[in-house]
């Protein structure tokens, strides 16, 4: 059996961590947009599930994971818009309406799956796309530069999101609207439009997270996300509403999960303790992020619908 510290095992374990992290990363990046604008979307998991099913089903029918991913994004876009209508225009209680979206996604994805597919059949996944030259670097090359394209894109999304939030007018508007919508409104920023855009971006990324998860696994099953959408929401809080924070959280979560799996596989975590060990990723992630992010606080207007003069 390969030595636990051999390059192959380390690379395999960390790659595993990256794969586990990516759906969380995409979903929590998206959720960060919505929350920065003051909208808490608890429906992420529902959007992920429908994105996952849509992506899986399309891939099953077209045999193209890319078409599947595109459909996952489109479903996310639609559900993001729907969520915006409910929480921004209809001023719904965000804690409740998000659960509605979640239950809708959970039930609908299962129903469609039962009706349209039935027995879970494997679908083609994304091909690995090693980056020339860079992927030849020992260990590091395999670890960082030998993944499928959606994984690269997910990590590329971090600086892009950071830039959008911190350096663009749109991002500044999001932050302004999430902190003090009255002030933003008084300066001529449409609170409604900004929140729609932010929540819809969140939907698209949640849809992408679901599609990447399902197509990456090459399979669908009822409740495929296993509540990852809720972990993503928690990561947004613990990641202090910053893309880099949610990346750190997602990676810690994914990596710790992968290492725990390896340790169990090798019997280093004894069988008797394996159920307890299943909690380690969540515990370590929460601890790490609480320590790192304790200086930050939530956007002031988070969960508060905006009515002018109200």
């Amino acid at each position, binding site marked *: 059996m390969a030595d636990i510290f051999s390059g192959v095992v380390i690379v395999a374990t960390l790659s595993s961590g990256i794969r586990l992290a990516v759906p969380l990363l995409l979903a929590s990046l998206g959720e960060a947009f919505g929350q920065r604008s003051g909208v808490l979307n608890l429906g992420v998991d529902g959007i992920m599930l429908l994105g996952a099913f849509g992506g899986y089903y399309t891939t099953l029918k077209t045999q193209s994971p890319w078409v599947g991913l595109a459909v996952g994004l489109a479903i996310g876009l639609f559900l993001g818009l729907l969520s915006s209508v409910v929480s921004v225009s209809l001023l719904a209680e965000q804690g409740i309406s998000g659960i509605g979206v979640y239950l809708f996604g959970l039930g609908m994805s299962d129903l469609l799956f039962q009706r349209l597919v039935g027995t879970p059949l494997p679908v083609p996944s994304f091909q690995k796309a090693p980056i020339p030259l860079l992927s030849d670097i020992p260990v590091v090359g395999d670890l960082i530069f030998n993944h499928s394209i959606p994984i690269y894109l997910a990590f590329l999304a971090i600086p892009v999101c950071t830039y959008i939030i911190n*350096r*663009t*007018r*749109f991002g*500044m*508007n999001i*932050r*302004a609207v999430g*902190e*003090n919508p*009255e*002030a*933003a*409104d*008084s*300066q*001529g*920023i*449409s609170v409604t439009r900004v929140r729609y855009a932010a929540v819809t971006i969140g939907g698209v990324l949640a849809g992408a997270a679901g599609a990447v998860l399902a197509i990456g696994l090459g399979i669908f099953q009822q409740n495929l996300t296993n509540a990852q959408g809720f972990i993503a929401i928690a990561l947004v809080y613990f990641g202090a509403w910053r893309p880099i924070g949610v990346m750190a959280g997602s990676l810690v979560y994914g990596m710790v999960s992968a290492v725990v799996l390896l340790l169990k596989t090798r019997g280093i975590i004894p069988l008797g303790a394996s159920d307890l060990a299943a909690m380690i990723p969540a515990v370590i992630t929460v601890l790490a992020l609480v320590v790192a992010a304790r200086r930050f606080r939530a*956007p*002031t207007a988070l969960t508060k619908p905006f009515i*002018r*003069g109200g």
Partner: protein
Amino acid sequence: MTQLLEMRGIVKRFPGVVANDRVDFDLRAGEVHTLLGENGAGKSTLMNILYGLYQPDEGDVLIEGSPTPITSPIEAINHGIGMVHQHFMLVPTLTVTENVAMGAVTSKRGRMNLRVVADRIRELSESHGLAVDPDAYIWQLSVGERQRVEIIRALYRDVKLLVLDEPTAVLTPGEVDHLFKILRQMAEAGRGLVFISHKLHEVLALSDRITVLRHGRVMGEVTAQEATRETLASMMVGRPVRLAPDKPPLEPGRARLTIRNLNVMGDRGLPALEDLNLSVREGEILGIAGVSGNGQRELAESIAGLRKPTSGEVEVDGTDITGSKPSVVRDAGLAYVPEERQRDGAIGAFSVSENLILVNHNQAPMSRKGFLRNGEIRQRSRQLVDEFSVVTPGLDVPASNLSGGNLQKLILARELSGSPSVLVASQPTRGVDIGAAEYIHDRLIEQRGSKSVAILLISEDLDEVLGLADRIAVIYEGRIVGEVDAEHADRQKIGLMMAGVSDTGD
């Protein structure tokens, strides 16, 4: 002079109240036109209509002669209208530069060139003497500094018409003078300014014309030349008003509040108070004068137990309460009227009676064995509301429904009901109407007369300090730079000390 603005027959109704009742108002280029009135008289409503935040039920708005319905702030901005709101429209987590850039067009295609904006801010702050760090976050700034950001934002936008809602409430006399200079400059440059205030001598000093509102109606329009403080005050209140409290002679007892070598850090992690020493005796009012942001907030918070000092001692009635929890400080005999009354002084969503028992709800007779006793609470609340003339529709309405003056009276009622030995009152009449201010001042004088309470009055309103305090300590950059007897106080000299020019020594 060109007619910039004309508002004709404006009517605005809110459920149960007519906020503006056929109000006419006009503004010419190059003038300062003041809207004067008590809180709730309808000044802010009228200006919010102008700014597109409210729609009038009746009446017309004409900009430069042509009827212009303004349905949103964007349109107001596009018509060159700017507004400095009483509650600042700033995003605390954004920088000064970002707040100034917000909503204004600074670049194409979504990218922002914030460096250009920051440079322009430096330019404006230099040319107008409005010192502010473009890279600072708003949450790090004092109220006075925040106002400068608002004015810089208006200058940055190069507005034609600027509305300032109670802008002097947070400034020192020197700053007020400075602000007025800037405002006059802006007027001379051809802008029209609407100045909303209830401070009579400021109104007289700055305005060209004054329109007085009461209960949503125009009580009259006068020029500054023909008006006096007394005539304006009686127009506002609808009865003759006594403008300065009568104060019996000082009979101080023993020291009840003692502060020794206090050092405190501010929010930015920099020293906010350095080796500060103070002592207040019972039967005495010590006034802290100073420009906003010089450590007043930190001082009040360190006494109230809301901020931990790094070193030094605070003693309330002989008990060392340095770094203690607020509840401990209260038990030692402190009463505290905080600066941010909406944020720190009351819980807006709680009812009037709940707010009245907030600090002593766990004591008999308000509760027994952990259960609140509603009968006792109501009786007690009713008594306090009557005693302190809190105007409220009922004991069960949320405190957030009360006007600033009535909320302050409520807080004062609660704080004084526990027979304190020390009262710290921070900006007790800021944003409060004349009638309520008069009442609060009388109450403070009354407490002084009881000879059992030491009163620390922290105020950025120099008139208030001069009118109430027995001794005046001037705070500058976290230190007491001078202390004078009120009787021998010289407004000019105090003004200089507030600006850090100390020639008196201590």
